[in-house]
């Protein structure tokens, strides 16, 4: 089984973000980075699939500057076999540009499964996976929360608003992974040491100019302070009135 996993380097979220001087990007000073959470679950799914079938290869792809090698190596320390960096000064804002570059690279080999995380937690993009599927002419099942693959076919569950959907598909396939599919393993120390010796190939990303650009970035407005209307039962009529007339939620 040949399995590809595409991962994204994202800032760790428990910081206070600032907008850079250009007004359209995030100030990277002091940020720490990790693999996008959903992509970690994609890596875990790939490793479990390889372990279940007993043979095969898990190859990790990431597009971006040399810094993304740290995230590729994290996936290698979890157990992936080799990595490929599609080198670019920065990941472009246009998901289609990224999808084209990834598809151009993935096209060179035959894959049974190409995994993505469902969404990038920094940019909230969820389209790269499905776009790659389209460009490769493969079926795509997005946001899967369970997975079973055997004999060249697979079954996956997708969580919908108030229901879930079971989908069957043939291989090869592109899958994007939702929360709940698994919990990723912690890289153990031997894995971390072994990752240094695993192959990590660097290739230029074939990026086009793209058509989507970020023109401005702004922080959400400060929330207005709350207002205390009164206390106890006596305050209820006034609260209801304000919820109807001012907040218009009742």
């Amino acid at each position, binding site marked *: 089984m040949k399995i590809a996993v595409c991962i994204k380097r994202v800032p760790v979220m428990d*910081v206070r973000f600032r907008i850079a001087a250009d007004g359209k990007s995030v100030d990277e000073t002091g940020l720490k980075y990790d693999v996008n959470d959903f992509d970690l679950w994609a890596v875990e799914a790939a490793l479990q699939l390889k372990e279940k079938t007993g043979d095969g290869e898990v190859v990790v792809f990431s597009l971006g500057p040399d810094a993304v090698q740290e995230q590729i190596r*994290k996936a290698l320390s979890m157990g992936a076999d080799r990595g490929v960096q599609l080198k670019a000064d920065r990941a472009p804002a246009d998901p289609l540009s990224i999808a084209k570059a990834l598809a151009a690279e993935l096209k060179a080999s035959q894959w049974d499964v190409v995994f993505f995380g469902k969404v990038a937690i920094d940019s909230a993009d969820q389209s790269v996976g499905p776009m790659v599927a389209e460009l490769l002419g493969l079926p795509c099942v997005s946001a899967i929360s369970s997975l079973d693959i055997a004999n060249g076919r697979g079954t996956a569950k997708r969580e919908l608003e108030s229901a879930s959907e079971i989908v069957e598909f043939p291989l090869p396939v592109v899958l994007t992974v939702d929360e709940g599919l698994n919990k990723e393993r912690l890289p*153990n*120390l*031997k894995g*971390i*040491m072994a*990752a240094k010796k695993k192959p990590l190939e660097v290739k230029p990303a074939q990026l086009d100019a793209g058509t989507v650009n970020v023109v401005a970035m702004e922080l959400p407005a400060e929330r207005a302070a709350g207002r205390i209307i009164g206390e106890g039962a006596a305050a209820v009529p006034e609260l209801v009135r304000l919820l109807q007339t001012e907040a218009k939620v009742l």
Partner: protein
Amino acid sequence: MATDFFNIDSALSEEERAVRDSVRRFVDESVMPIIGDAYVQGKFPKQLIPRMAELGLLGANLPEEYGCAGLNNVAYGLIMQELERGDSGIRSFASVQGALVMYPIYAFGSEEQKRHWLPKMASGEIIGCFGLTEPDYGSNPSGMITMAREQKDGSWVINGAKMWITNGSQAKVAVVWAKTNGDADQRSIRGFIVPTDAKGFTAKDQKGKLSLRASDTSELVLDDVHVPGDAILPKSGGLKSPLMCLTQARYGISWGALGAAIGCYEEALSYAKTRVMFGRPIGGFQLQQARLADMLTEIVKGQLVSLHLGRLKDAGTFTPQQVSLAKRNNVNMATNIAREARRMLGGNGILAEYASMRHMANLESVYTYEGTHDIHTLILGQAVTGLNAFE
């Protein structure tokens, strides 16, 4: 977000950060939820051992050929830091297994001993303890009275008692230091690998501890314990051999204390930002800000000391006196930070639900063991004056 005011991360390699992050997560997920209870009940949480072994935390800086992770000393130190952020007892367990049992077997053992013991100790299958300190010989181990006598057939008979032995009751093997053949000189001290099920060997839990409660601390008694000739560590000789082990362990402790300090500081900081008194978070008051600023400053200094010491150790140029300075400084600052953090938490600070008082009590042991604060003071005094103030 972990405390990293001076961007120490930028001075760590990718691999060092990866190791630290894995251990950090293990501690957050597996140690933090259970450690308060384990402490109150006075039990070492044994159930953590298989997971620690699987992660590769036991003897992590020893070579891969013996089943270890082969990490550098900075990565090893970061492991100790994260473990002690959980609890000094957890770090003590790993320190003893790695630096005081696996290390002497690695440094002073025969190839056969290394191949026999190290992989099983790295995998957690065999837990070890280290017997140097005796009831009447703590800071002056050269006075020890435990004696091993060689028999005609080359085997040894050991008699004596050891005290304050971490892992003592759960250990399957003890590295015991003893004088040999009636010679009272410290140069006759040798190390022995003693299986704890040997006839005449007993380990007894030390009861009534108010510190390191989540740690197994025992007294060992060796009453005519008979071990074969190949139980001796062939390359051990004199007091300097166990002292070399202690240098390894103390190095790890300098990092560990940093972890405890960071744990207390982060707890105090988070409390200060959310606990409201006089109508605003207590973190807005100058007295508490001064406490936090002092804690942060001491942590940053300690981080720089330990990191640089680790780089020197990796370069093979560090001295035991430098290790003394780091252990002395970092443990002392951690005891102070733990106490200040406990005070910032007010009444809540005395509850096991919070970590600071547990760390505060633990660190009193750490202050005393592996060379007391005072003994390290004298080591430094001797290093700079050339004059011995020990005797």
